[in-house]
């Protein structure tokens, strides 16, 4: 478990305006129909991602895809458990989730 990345995720969860579980589920269902590659491109070109890219990449130093996916899954399990249920119940959403996590990790590692 990466403590530094957990701390970043906790800071995101502590930021004001952090969405509730219902809003998160609604956003996930809305963006799940979009190709994962396009969504990754959209995330990596956002100004906030660009500004925090160095910090996030430093936090993910010596972290592999499996650890990264475990941290993200635990985060979702804590704040958005309904989203995990939706992913497990639908194969396409599972594939979308896998493609999205893989794409974001590769983008952070670049």
């Amino acid at each position, binding site marked *: 478990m990466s403590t530094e990345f957990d701390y970043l*995720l*906790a800071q995101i969860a502590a930021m004001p305006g952090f969405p509730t579980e219902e809003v998160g589920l609604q956003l996930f269902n809305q963006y799940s129909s979009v190709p994962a590659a396009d969504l990754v491109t959209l995330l990596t070109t956002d100004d906030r991602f660009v500004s925090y890219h160095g910090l996030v990449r430093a936090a993910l130093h010596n972290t592999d895809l499996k650890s990264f996916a475990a941290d993200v899954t635990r985060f979702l399990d804590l704040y958005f458990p309904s989203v995990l249920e939706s992913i497990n119940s639908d194969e396409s959403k*599972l594939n979308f989730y896998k493609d999205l996590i893989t794409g974001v990790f590769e983008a952070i590692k670049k």
Partner: protein
Amino acid sequence: MAKQEKAPSTETSKASIIQVAKEAVDARPVESDLPPVLGLDSMTPDAILAEARRSIVGEQFRQLQENVLSAQLAKSEALRIQEEERARAIKEELKQKQAAVPQQPQQQGVSSVSPAPLVTPGTGVLSGLMSNSVAAERAALVDAALKNLESDEAKLEFMKLHPELFNTSIIPFQSPSSPSQPTHQHEPPAQQANPVDMFNSMLNQFKTGMEFQRALAPQSPSIDMVTITDKFREIVDTTNKSYESIFKTIEQRNQEQLSNLNSTVIEQQKLLNDKTQELIRLQIEARERENQNLIERIKQLESIASQPPQIPIGQLKEIVAQVRNNGIPLSIDTAEQERVRREEAREDKKLEHMLSREERELELARLREERRLASINSVTSFLGGVTEAKRLSVHKMSPTAEKLAKVF
């Protein structure tokens, strides 16, 4: 009788010449084109005449000459006509005598057979009757010659070239109007039958003809150029005298006009000087009045400037407001009011300054409070993040999550 008639015609001719000359001189404008001044005292009449002809009335003088010449031609023509009448009278007398001759055939044959050479009055006792036929023939010859000549100049030239044809001194002239003619023409034939009486009669006739010729000698029909020249010279002298008098008159008139002009110029100059002095005096008076008006105007302006302004209060306030709106400080208050107003303005500026400073202090306080609040939020967020991180670290994944985490 002929002299008495000739004298007035000569006088009339001279008078007409002088009249023509005077008219010619008067026709010229004296003021514009005066003839040159002639020294008449030192010049001969011919020189005066030539100078006058050249300078003043050359054309008129030429006309005058032509008139004189034409008068001479007319006179010669009159004499020629008179000569013709005489010749005609002689012919009639000869016819009458021829009609009387058949009663005396011897004498008629002598007189008619013999040709008529030019004879002098003293050549013979029969020259009285014989010369009548010769004169008639000469008159006929002259008449024919003059008729063949058309122009008067040619006739005059002919008279000059043949003065002997017109010289009646060798012709026993017997005018038909002569008072002695009827006694000889109507002489009874009985007296002519007596040779002594006939001789006496012829001698008397010859004497009468000589006397009559002698009496008529000045009236010779021939053209005597010496007489013409003398008359012409007389006319020229008269004309010269007339011109001299005319020149004197013109000179006198010019002097009078010059003196009149001088007097007029002097009067005009006096009048001009008077007008100029009057104009200068009027200009000086106008300048003095203008200066007086300016002085009075200056005094009025000074009195107006010394008086307080008479502008209405409302209008004055509008003017002051306009001036102040343009950024120019202006006051119409008294000194105390002005001082109070300045103090109030100073207080206002001080208050405005204090107010602006307080506003800046409040802004700084607000910024400090925001910064403190942001720091508190940041600390709170940090603490929240730490809390959330602690919560995330202690969170045990559900079986679903574990299953999903094992997918990768």
